[in-house]
């Protein structure tokens, strides 16, 4: 059995779940900055309070899977993206404690809200920066990172950062459309109508620019002449519907369409990157740990992941429906 491939699939699953689930959490945080009224802000944060922690755990899962199954890649990527990662971790920290601390006081709650919003934007932006940096290419010599810590701040990463912020906001709008009160519903509808086409436009620009500077991406289009254009068409269709959907549809439809758009995007990136773990530089087999480590990890992953998905879904089910006007604790 091809263990590194299976481990890579698990890492991809964890990363996908992270991007979709924490994507809407982070997007909700970003959208908080655009809201004018205090009660809407409370309501917006309440919509994600009971479930955010599990969503963020998929980030740890992704990182640790990389550490376990592809230690060589982990050891190259962590120093290569030292600054964006440290900034992301600090921003996630600020955002995480803001959840707990903002409810402890009413006087300065808006300052914690601001910290929460900025933390969300910065986290999303840094994740985009890392994505762009990977596609641009990481300098490796003799199996070690040989670039500088500022490599991640080149034009392509700076652009992909914006794309990720907008993409997550699109997911966040979908979530708020599902969970929010009348006021939030109105707000999220507006933000979907504007945000989705903006995302598609930025993504096309970013894609073209990336292809112009990275021969590996042009090569991928030659290798996948059907699937990559196919995914692009699907993405535009889903995005188009998300921009123009009628208000009669079920409240969950926008979120699902948002998921679809992001999922098609992530699949395209996966197609471009595969079979590398560090794009265009290092294949997953060259970066893999010994089979004993892969097997031990995979046994756990295969047996425990379904259970995790089941009780996580249960937690969402407990907090189903629209968010109560005065929060979950009265």
């Amino acid at each position, binding site marked *: 059995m091809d263990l590194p491939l299976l481990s890579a699939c698990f890492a991809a699953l964890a990363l996908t779940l992270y991007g979709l689930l924490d994507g809407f959490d982070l997007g909700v945080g970003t959208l908080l900055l655009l809201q004018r009224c205090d009660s809407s802000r409370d309501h917006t944060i309440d919509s994600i309070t009971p479930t955010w*922690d599990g969503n963020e755990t998929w980030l740890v899962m992704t990182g*640790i899977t990389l550490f*376990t199954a592809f230690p060589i890649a982990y*050891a190259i990527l962590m120093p290569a993206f030292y600054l964006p990662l440290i900034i992301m971790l600090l921003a996630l*920290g600020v955002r995480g*404690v803001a959840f707990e601390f903002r409810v402890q006081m009413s006087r300065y709650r808006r300052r914690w809200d601001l910290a929460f919003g900025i933390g969300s934007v910065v986290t999303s932006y840094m994740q985009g920066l890392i994505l762009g940096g990977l596609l641009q290419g990481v300098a490796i010599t003799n199996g070690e990172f040989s670039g500088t810590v500022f490599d991640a701040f080149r034009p392509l990463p700076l652009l992909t950062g914006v794309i990720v912020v907008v993409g997550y906001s699109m997911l966040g709008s979908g979530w708020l459309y599902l969970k929010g009160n009348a006021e939030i519903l109105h707000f999220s509808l507006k933000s979907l109508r504007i945000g989705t086409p903006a995302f598609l436009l930025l993504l096309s620009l970013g894609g073209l620019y990336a292809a112009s500077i990275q021969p590996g991406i042009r090569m991928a289009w030659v290798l996948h002449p059907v699937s990559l254009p196919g995914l692009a068409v699907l993405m535009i269709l889903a995005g188009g519907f998300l921009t123009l959907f009628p208000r009669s549809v079920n409240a969950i439809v926008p979120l699902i369409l948002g998921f679809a758009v992001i999922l098609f995007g992530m699949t395209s990136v996966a197609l471009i990157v595969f079979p590398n773990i560090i794009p265009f530089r290092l294949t997953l087999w060259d970066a893999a740990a010994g089979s004993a*480590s892969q097997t031990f*990890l995979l046994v*756990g992953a295969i047996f425990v992941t379904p259970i995790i998905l089941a009780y996580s879904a249960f937690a969402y089910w407990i907090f189903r429906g629209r968010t109560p006007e005065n929060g979950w*604790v009265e």
Partner: protein
Amino acid sequence: MRLDASTLARIQFAFTVSFHIIFPTISIGLASFLAVMEGLWLKTKEEVYLQIYRFWLNIFAMAFGVGVVTGLVLSFEFGLGFSRFAQIAGPAIGPLIAYEVLTAFFLEAGFLGIMLFGFHRVGPRLHFLATCLVASGTVISASWILAANSWMQTPSGIKVKDGHIEVVHWLHVVMNPSWGVRLPHMISAAYLTACFLVSGVGAHYLLQGRYPVFARKSVAIGTTFATVLIAGQVFIGDILYGTMLKHQPSKMQAAEGFWETKSESPAPYYWVIVPDQQHQRNRFAFGTPYLGSIWLTHSLNGTVEGLRNTPRNQQPIMGMVFYGFRIMYCTAMAMFAVGISSLWLRWKGRLFTSPWFLRILVLMTPSGLVATLAGWYLAETGRQPWVIFGILKTVDAISPVPAQVLLSSLIAFVCIYSVFMGAFLYFTLGLIQRGPKDESTEANSSGSLKNAFQSKILARVFDTSATGRR
């Protein structure tokens, strides 16, 4: 000390991990405490248990939140600061941490929402189950991370082949020689931390004459558990001492403060030393004669091995190890004294009415955290200069990241973590100042909150969605 990349990476890791461990210690202890309180409430329907539960739930939530976000940093910091360690150790300890995420982090995260916000959404039994699952999640999490750290202290189950580690026996990696002792040691430490937090707050209220029912219950429960736990902890600590003496003699040599290959006979027990690592001697040492022989060798004139038995390039820095050990040990003795006094006062019926004892309890409120941190300093500084004992030195494990970058991230961590700590203390002290809420208005004695509230919520939700559609 030069601030080169290796020193800075070590300071950064030491700072972030020290800061982090404070919060899991609180949340491991409080989670189990909360489970016991909720269980007692369900069983007895005594309001005071629910009151205690609600009060500590708030503090638990904050500690858990800070613990999560500072722990997230650590899972990346293996690679950020120590990429060569990550590359070599990843195959061995990576899976242990992966299992921690799979079996503990998700479990905690999945049920924490129900525990914190589900009071009106689920029945009392399911809520209790959620509390129990979160509490077991904290213990499972500790088991895996202690397995990983113990493996770094006493590596086994692997073979080293051209600079790479290959796992031979997973069972030996997980159940390495020190794990079985260090895990109960840490769990007891976390439980003791919670006991002293709870009884300290109770004693504070008793001294002020506020919330007598809540306060008496807190002091009674806190001191009872603390007495049992500290007795066990002294016993576990003694076994651990023997384990480390066997597997990491250099750590225990440094911990006792002796340099000579063999100490004088009879050996004193040092309380204060000013070690001079360069000349391999103590500039100053103060101790109790005979006590070293009695405690460490269980004889009147036994000798103790000193740090010169370890080659100089493999010695830890004695001062750090010695004081880590002494602070932990002295705190533990103080806890033991509190435990004994509490038994005596209880027998005399004066547990709640002796101001001197209550003042000591208030003073001891953070004692669990002090002992835990000091113990970890003993464990981690005593392992140096190795990161994986006997296999990889810390200086050979660092990332190719320039010193200036490490310095700026260290400054950023210190600034932001100070805000976290400041806010945590401010809000926790504020909650203690405000005191527990009166539960009689919030709970009914039937114990089922679900039916009373859910219809209300549903009606409101229905109402909101209806207006939303208009």
